[in-house]
């Protein structure tokens, strides 16, 4: 904490000096001789005092954490024999003891020793970091304030830095993707070391319950992802059957039939459907739609489970409606009015114009929006977690319970996580599968939509 204060102090002082110095350099307050506004000299020094010191601080912090942990844990006897999770636990204990909240239950000699060492190391670390960072800041301050002269292009340099900073910000998005890919990939790799890749991709049996203890009876775990995928597709398919016609027809009605006023009230109303959190849909599905479907089924002599694929798909379809309708609406409206006029002038009715001229022209865009909606449905989690079942069944019967990729990820990861157990790692393999699937759909959709946009520009 003090480190930050010291660095900031340095930086603000640098700003002050940087701003004052050029004013002293010019005679008669003739600022036009200066290369840049004096403020920029201030910013320039400020940045040089602040940024390198902060970078040093965070780098040191990151590496020292590992170093300290290593040194401290070496003091614990027989550390090699302890499992990884327990090591974390012991380390946490040491930290707690060092902070003075040693609980009465743990007075283990070795741990005491380790915690004392920890305290010592932390103290040394804090002191040295403080010194290093503050000195760095101060040295840079002295060095760069010497550089200030009348001709010094401070504004250009500062702007260059800002531009670089902006670039870094936009790279965060790329880093996120890289982070997703790497994390999914490496955890999946660990999974595929234990379970064969082919079994996962082509296996027809999914029951990830694995015996955690040796003596436990029960299944040995099977990780064939096909039934999970078919379940996902079944629910997505049902959702699309609901959402595509409803969404498309709403878009058609809104863009072509409804009056302006009606349109401006109806459109936001439908878009509310997209703003409702999915957990609410999940609750709605589990509490109202599921029992309703089961009762309807009973009354016509069908045996439908409450957690049927139909229920999850239906509710998901409702959620997807606004995605399709507002995307299609935009796309239909993007077809220029003069083309519609051309059709009307030939004596075509509205529906004929829509079916034979506008929709064929807008088709690629609509396909793109449907693909985006499919990607969304595949990745949707809460509705299926709350309203679809857990049993991985290979079926196309919408009245049965099926499971989905996202449901399985949630069930595998909620609760105890053990990162050396295939059961936990399987979630990441499923996550990778999901990511690749949606990536493929998204890229395709984005490409189609983009191409389509260019056509009318």
């Amino acid at each position, binding site marked *: 904490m003090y480190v930050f204060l010291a660095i900031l102090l340095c930086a603000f002082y640098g700003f002050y000096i940087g701003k004052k110095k050029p004013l002293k350099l010019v005679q008669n307050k003739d600022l036009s001789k200066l290369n840049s506004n004096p403020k920029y000299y201030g910013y320039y020094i400020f940045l040089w005092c602040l940024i390198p010191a902060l970078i040093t601080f965070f780098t040191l912090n990151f590496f020292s954490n590992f170093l300290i942990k290593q040194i401290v844990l070496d003091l614990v006897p027989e550390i090699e024999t302890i499992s990884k999770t327990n090591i974390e636990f012991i380390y946490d204990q040491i930290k707690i003891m060092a902070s003075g909240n040693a609980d009465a239950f743990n007075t283990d000699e070795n741990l005491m020793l380790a915690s004392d060492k920890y305290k010592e190391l932390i103290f040394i670390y804090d002191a040295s970091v403080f010194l290093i960072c503050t000195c760095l800041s101060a040295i840079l301050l002295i060095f760069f304030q010497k550089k200030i002269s009348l001709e010094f292009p401070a504004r250009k340099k500062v702007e260059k830095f800002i531009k670089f900073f902006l670039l870094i910000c936009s790279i965060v998005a790329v880093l996120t993707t890289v982070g997703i890919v790497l994390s999914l990939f490496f955890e999946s790799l660990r999974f595929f070391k234990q379970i064969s890749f082919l079994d996962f991709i082509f296996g027809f049996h999914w029951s990830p319950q694995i015996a955690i203890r040796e003596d436990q009876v029960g299944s040995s775990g099977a990780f064939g992802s096909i039934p999970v995928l078919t379940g996902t597709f079944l629910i997505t398919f049902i959702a699309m059957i609901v959402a595509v016609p409803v969404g498309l027809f709403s878009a058609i009605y809104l863009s072509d039939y409804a*009056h*302006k006023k009606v349109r401006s009230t109806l459109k936001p109303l439908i878009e509310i459907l997209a703003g409702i959190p999915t957990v609410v849909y999940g609750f709605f599905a589990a509490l109202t739609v599921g029992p309703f479907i089961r009762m309807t089924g009973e009354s016509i002599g069908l045996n439908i489970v409450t957690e049927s694929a139909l229920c999850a798909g239906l509710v998901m379809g409702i959620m997807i409606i606004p995605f399709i309708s507002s995307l299609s609406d935009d796309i239909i409206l993007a077809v*220029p009015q*003069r*083309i*519609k*006029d*051309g*059709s*009307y*002038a*030939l*004596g*075509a*009715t509205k529906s*004929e114009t829509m079916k*034979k*001229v506008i929709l*064929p*022209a807008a088709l690629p865009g609509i396909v793109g929006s449907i693909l985006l909606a499919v990607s969304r449905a595949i990745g949707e989690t809460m509705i299926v977690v709350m309203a679809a079942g857990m049993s991985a069944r290979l079926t196309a019967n919408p009245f049965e319970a099926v499971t989905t990729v996202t449901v399985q990820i949630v069930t595998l990861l909620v609760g105890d996580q053990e990162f050396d157990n295939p059961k936990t790692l399987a979630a990441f393999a499923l996550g990778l599968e999901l990511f690749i699937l949606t990536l493929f759909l998204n890229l395709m959709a984005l490409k189609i939509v983009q191409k389509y946009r260019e*056509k009318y520009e």
Partner: protein
Amino acid sequence: MRQLYILDTNLRRNGKHMAEEQIIPISKFNKLKKSTSKKVTISVQNITVSYNGKIAVDNISMNINQNEVTALIGPSGCGKSTFIRCLNRMNDVIENCTIEGKIILNGINIYNPEVDIVKLRTNIGMVFQKPNPFPKSIYDNIIYAPKLHGLVSNKSESDDLVEKSLTEAGLFNEVKDRLNDSGTSLSGGQQQRLCIARAIAINPSVILMDEPCSALDPIASAIIEELIDTLKKKITIIIVTHNMQQAARVSEKTAFFHLGKLIEFSDTSTIFTNPKQKRTLGYITGRFG
């Protein structure tokens, strides 16, 4: 006689470029036409159009003769497009637009609630300022409307109709080898002729043209003008144009609009040589507008 000068692109004679424009005293220009027809196709009676209560076309009455070309001229924003779109009720598409008055087509007021707007538009075709072929093949562009109206029943009939319409529009020879190409792949002039071909494929009795040549170069315009000349034997044509020479060349009667009002409406020869109104004179001699 007042000495009026207008521009003549002279294109018909030598097909050369715009740069060849020359100024000819109007007295030497004796091709201006006069109305000869006695039969009225459309009778416009006190039409007033307003957008959101703002009047765009103010109480206009005029008669449009059969098998003649009527040209509408006037400065930008004076309501020509609004007026011409009334004639096949294209303004119905625009929400905030209100129309009063009567337009009598063969004894029937087209604003009569019983009139089927779709039927009306099959009777009165329209060609727009910017060529607007559908993003479909040339063949489908032509056959779209006849199919809707059930004018063709089989493939050979369709083929015949496509060929006939394209020939009438003077486009057939240029596109006969690529009827399956997209209509949007044609040049601007070809696209506009495609739109005309598309309009005449359903045999309308009237065609409305809203600045059909404004997006085209002089050569393509000249071809369309010739086309208009041939079409008028069968079809009544109403054309909006900003090009005075075009109006003078193609039309029998000319109407001059200004600020939503019909200032003058008479034979083309009268309008261009001996206008009654000062404003008309000012406009056609280029003093305003």
